[in-house]
């Protein structure tokens, strides 16, 4: 039994058959809904997330929230009650959801050129349909795509990824739910991959500080890989949308 519960087997394969430095399959689509200004759907392994962006628009509710030099970024994270194995009681409002909402806002505010839209508000809503580990990274990645679909100016892509450490030695990329259960530390990093800046870093459990650098490097590499996947998706989406208006024929 103990053998089955290893994070990394002797021949270097993980529980789901991936190698240590492999991401789960990412599939995504921009513009899934018509009502929001921007929307995106993203699958990372079995984790499935929908994101919607409204704005920039006039600040709703109390005007005192509005800022004279930047846009207010408002995030709400919510999980469908059927998204986890055990049915959840409430879709949002619990501590974990609130925490993820705050972290999302932190990561997205760092990437959006908020100074271009003073006195306005940008709403970002994410809905988790299926939770299978790495919820926060999937939300950040989906939100980035939705922001791009909404045409909101970004400094650059903001991507997030998790990394773990197996056998006290080998860094693992993109931790799944199964691996989260087995245990081991999880380092979550949200970064601006082109400039290599880190906008959010969170770690659970412990490992020696000597290992931090290589795990962090691995997570940053993951962010870069994700960025290229997202970039590909954005380009093909733009091509689809653009060609329907006839731009492709002019080149």
């Amino acid at each position, binding site marked *: 039994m103990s053998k089955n519960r290893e994070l990394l087997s002797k021949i270097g394969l993980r529980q789901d058959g991936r190698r240590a430095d492999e991401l789960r399959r990412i*599939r995504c*689509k921009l513009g*899934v*809904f*018509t*009502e*929001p200004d921007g*929307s995106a*759907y993203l*699958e990372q392994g*079995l984790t*499935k997330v*929908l*994101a*919607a962006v*409204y704005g920039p628009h006039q600040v*709703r509710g109390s005007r005192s929230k509005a800022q004279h030099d930047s846009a207010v970024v*408002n995030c*709400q994270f*919510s999980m*469908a*009650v*059927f998204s986890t*194995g055990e*049915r959840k009681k409430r*879709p949002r409002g619990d501590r974990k959801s609130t925490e993820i909402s705050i972290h999302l806002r932190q990561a997205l505010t760092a990437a959006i050129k908020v100074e271009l839209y003073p006195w306005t508000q940008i*709403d970002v*809503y994410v*809905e988790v*349909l*299926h939770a299978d580990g790495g919820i926060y990274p999937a939300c950040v990645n989906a939100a980035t795509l939705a922001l791009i679909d909404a045409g909101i100016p970004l400094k650059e892509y903001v991507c997030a990824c998790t990394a773990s450490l197996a056998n006290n030695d080998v860094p693992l990329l993109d931790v799944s739910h199964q691996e989260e259960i087995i245990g081991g530390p999880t380092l979550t990093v949200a970064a601006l991959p082109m400039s290599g800046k880190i906008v959010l870093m969170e770690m659970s459990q412990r490992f020696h500080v000597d290992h931090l650098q290589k795990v962090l490097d691995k997570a940053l590499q993951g962010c870069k890989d994700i960025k290229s996947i997202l970039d590909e998706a954005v380009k093909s989406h733009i091509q689809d949308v653009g060609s329907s208006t006839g731009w492709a024929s002019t080149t």
Partner: protein
Amino acid sequence: MALCEAEKTFVLHGVEENFRVDGREREDYRPIELETNIVSHAFGSARLRLANTDVLVAVKIEVDVPYPERPKEGKLEFFVDCSANATPDFEGRGGEDLAIEISNSLSAAYKSPEVFDLTKLCILKGHKCWKIFVDILLLECGGNLYDAVSIAVKAALWDTRIPLVKSVTVDGNNVDMEVSDELHDCQKLDVTAAPIMVTVCKIGEQCIVDPNVAEELCSVGAVVIAVSKDKFSTVLQIGSGSLHPQTLLECLQMGEKVAQRLSEALTETLSEINPNKNQDVGFLK
């Protein structure tokens, strides 16, 4: 969304002429897309897209103790979640009123034993039963929520597979049950009588079905009719307007006729669904 007087008049005249803004007649529906079995760890699920209205329904099952007053019956519970993705108004607790309204109407529609037989969900009288959670997630609101939700719920229940109980042993107060290990050993629910809801909307002097958002804004009143086979299971008036009894009767007749057609179309569609066909499902399409 806000409409000015001229726009409202335009919609109203369209309904009067039996030629609505999007070219439909008064009794026509917008195109409906339905997919089943798209939430992999639910017991059954369906996603329905009615033009711009998007609904995702997942069914989860748990073992529970029956209510003491109804020991032979299982439980059926509806939960509606209005996602903020649909509109920023639903942020926080903003969607709760609508959610409760819809889930209550569903509970009312499914209440009668002729509509949905809860005794089939009983495992051991007075001790154990299945509790079915029907969780509805509203992802986009493009008008006519009740109809969309009711069709999606029926499809999700059709898709639901309940594990087969092999044996139940009683040892004093302890009840042990053994569920079949075989993954495909399961029973399906009987949903032939599950109700379909039709919203009949009164605009000017005429009644229409499947109103879009603009038409909903023009309506003076609406009636939601839940039809199970050839009988009504619930009638519910929504909105703030008032209706004449004669109009109400006309609405009911129209609603029943349309529900009959809708129900037939749904049964036909569900029978055509091929679970073995491997294709890109869900939101990636």
